[in-house]
């Protein structure tokens, strides 16, 4: 199931198109904290589902091979 190269106690997932290893059992809120991102300033798509409730981030646990897109507003016309 998991890739052979993943360290013990870690899971590998895809965040914004890049592969990342995180400790097994982390929630989305844990990941955001580790990335120094303010949950109020980002929008997250988890396995193609947009999470509209930021309060749920602490209850969404990440699994191997999950795909996350973390987006925000940037300058544009």
């Amino acid at each position, binding site marked *: 199931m998991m890739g052979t190269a993943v360290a013990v106690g870690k899971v590998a997932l895809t*965040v*914004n*198109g*890049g592969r990342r290893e995180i400790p097994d059992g982390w929630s989305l809120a844990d990941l955001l904290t580790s*990335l*120094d*991102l303010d949950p109020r*300033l*980002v*929008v997250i*798509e988890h396995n193609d589902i*947009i*999470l*509209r409730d*930021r309060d749920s981030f602490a209850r969404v646990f990440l699994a191997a091979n999950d795909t996350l*897109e*973390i*987006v*925000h*507003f*940037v*300058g*544009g*016309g």
Partner: protein
Amino acid sequence: MAHADVLSHESATQDDPQPFVIAGREFRSRLMVGTGKYDSNARMIEAIEASGAEVVTVAVRRVDLDRSKDEGMLHHLDPDHFFLLANTAGCYTAAEAIRYARLARAAGFNEWVKLEVIGDQQTLLPDTFGLLQATKTLADEGFKVLAYTNDDLITALKLEEAGAVAVMPLASPIGSGLGMLNPYAIRTIKQRLTVPVIVDAGVGTASDACIVMEQGVDGILMNTGIAAASDPVRMATAMRHAVGAGRLAYLAGRMPRREVAVPSCPLTGMLGAPRER
């Protein structure tokens, strides 16, 4: 205090008896501005304040995870003082644009979207077929869709029918600064649509903005015309005046064009002429 400045710019339209309303919401300025292409965020904020704009567009993009100090727009724009209008710039299919619109809505500010479905990389002209599809879907989902389109009347009518709350025909291609290429088309669209018509893209300088507003359209959205000026803050002020002036000139009703001169001064009472009667 910076925000008080924004509010005071209401005077740009103080002689305009008609409020600027889209989907039941009134906005204090007919000029909407983008936030792209500025060399600094401080300059951007200063220019937006000078423009008097309330509606400010933003794009949706991935957070750059390797540069944690790559701050998003929300670090700079106070959503209590500006109406954030997310766009779907860079999307080439209806499905992609719908996905970006949904992500933008999840940010939690509003259900409005400046919908772009681009059809060609070189001209950035819209894919009107994809645009219509995405407009229908998003309108059904409760989005307030402001549809960026070309200056084609039939497409504009179909977008209105599909549920767009405003139709945004281009003056000329995005970022071109060529001004309004087809005033007849813009006027016709304005005359035929019920929803507001906001000209988006192509305005290069103040006179362009003024001429666009003189066609009777409801507003203008611009980005590069301000951001790419040598002095964006001064150009933003010029655009504020130009939009106000063009609007007033439209309301005032211009004089008829004539192919011959008509003197402004009396023809009688000239020196050396024989006394009348």
